[in-house]
């Protein structure tokens, strides 16, 4: 049973990701992205990563995706623009994609992956918090500078300067 659900979730993720790329309308692409994100949430749940699953829903779907859809809707005429796929490079692209899928698939099957000893579901929030504020405090803090820089940059580029 669990296997069937897993494959279903995986299929939704991949299929909607494909839709994001191939859809002719930006809005459809954005909606497809919603299903991709949901699929990923499902995968997190399968991994018993409860905290990440929630964050995925709250941040990606609740925040980023909504922002994207707002962006599309508020932009003049953009909904009616047809996105070209004339440069999809179908032939070469397919070969490359198949090559990657083949080698990655073979790798996934043949490699001795590290496996968690405990397969029982457990609370992860506390340990994530501990890791972020103990072992990985520095990357965590440095990320704040990254966000500050991103904010400054984004306002600089999007600000409407009368005199330039």
């Amino acid at each position: 049973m669990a296997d069937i659900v897993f494959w279903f979730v995986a299929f939704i993720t991949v299929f909607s990701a494909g839709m994001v790329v191939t859809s002719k309308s930006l809005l459809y692409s954005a909606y497809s992205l919603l299903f991709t994100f949901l699929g990923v949430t499902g995968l997190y749940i399968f991994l018993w990563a409860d905290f990440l699953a929630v964050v995925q829903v709250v941040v990606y779907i609740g925040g980023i995706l909504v922002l994207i859809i707002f962006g599309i809707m508020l932009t003049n005429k953009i909904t009616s623009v047809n996105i070209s796929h004339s440069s999809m490079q179908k032939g070469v692209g397919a070969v490359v994609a198949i090559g990657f899928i083949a080698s990655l698939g073979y790798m996934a099957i043949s490699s001795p992956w590290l496996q968690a000893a405990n397969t029982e579901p457990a609370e992860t929030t506390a340990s994530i918090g501990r890791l972020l504020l103990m072992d990985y405090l520095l990357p965590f803090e440095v990320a704040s500078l990254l966000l500050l820089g991103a904010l400054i940059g984004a306002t600089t580029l999007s600000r409407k300067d009368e005199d330039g």
Partner: protein
Amino acid sequence: MSNLESLKFFWPELILSATALIAILSDLIYERKDSHKVSFWAIGGLLLTFITIRLFGGSSINGLFMGTMALDPFSEFFKILIVLSTIIVMLMSFNSSELDGYRKGEYYTIMSIMAFGLVMMTSAIDVLMFYVAIEIVSIMSFFLAGYLKRNPNSNEASLKYVIYGAFSSGVMLYGLSILFGLTGETNFFAIKNAISQLGPDSNLALILSIVFILVGLGYKISAVPFHFWTPDVYEGSPTSITAYLSVAPKAAGFALIIRFFNIAFGSNSAMGSDEWSSLNSLPWPFLIALLSAATMTIGNLVAIQQQSVKRMLAYSSIAHAGYMMMAIPVMSQSGIYGLMIYLFMYMLMNLGAFFVVMYVQDKFDGENFDAFNGLGWKMPLLGISMTLFMVALTGLPPTSGFVGKFYIFAAVIEAGNQYYWLAFVGVINSVVSLYYYIKVVRHMYFEGERSDIVSLPESKLTTSLVLVLALPTFFLGWYFSPLVEWANNSLNFFLGI
């Protein structure tokens, strides 16, 4: 070492981040037309950083902040290189007429944050840390490349950069996740220990992970075939930023590649001993050797065809990345300090060349070869300096470029007949590069009208900056022992955790 204890070794980085904050706050105070004054704060902060780097220099502590950072002479060398080039580029930006009419406050702030990211890249010994550092650098570069927001070329450059950058870092993350899946570790040393326990059945996954990681790191140093963004971005960005992008991220990228590959995928006996090889006989040195040959060849051949000097320099910087990569697969101390020497020389001459291009662009309104016609007669100082930079970039004596190339080639040849072919490709490429570098000199001296009116750049700053870059380029070609010793002493970063 615990987080609190580590703080006292973290002064340079703390000062650098404070610099960024002070810069953005000071921008609030200044009038719009005075916004360039923010750079005084930024440059002051960078100078202070420079001093603190020197003050805390010499010590070697691995595993600051719970094993995410290292403090050692190796990173010190690169930090100094990065801070110096940031200061030089900020000074260059003073006179850039491209930036006229844009707010300057954010420009210097973003540059400071980028410098912080670069500095973190050079000393990270944890996968998570290095990823965050790389992202800082990438995202700040996107903004800087697109800073001229009314210039379509700049916009285009920035957007291409964003998307290509996202693509590369995505692939790299995938590679890192494979690595984590095999080892369960994020610290370089721990990864090494875990890998050495693995059997041959994991080689496939390891190779995939190495290649994917190289996509991300190769993009930072613009190695073929991950170089496609380079010419477009370099051409569209403000020239001062092009200069910066061609030097600082490359230096940090090389520091990271050396550290990551040699620690995580290098054999245990590591540096100091003569037997230094790749872990589990993974063929990554050969891979980098191949990429190196491809990088310099394609960079050079395409550079020959360029009409724009800026674009020519963009391709030539790809070729230079190729020369520098030669030093990695030889897996020897002399290779690594050869690369460090090369990078230092390259910083001076490449910044210098871009500075002259920037000046010509502002002054004579064009970046094609024709814009340089007769420059040598009109402005002898610029002409001679540019000639010097070109000769140095070619790698001919008696300039610093020759010294850098010499050390790298010597290291490659020293490594034995395994890489003779690489040295051969390198030599051929150096000869080819002469063709397009000398073309600039030809245009400056042998084409266009000779003028009897000789002038200096109006601004004293321009003159002195050209001299600051040109004089060391020349004199380091004669007397370079201190630099070599410094690089040589900066090598002991393999202390173990």
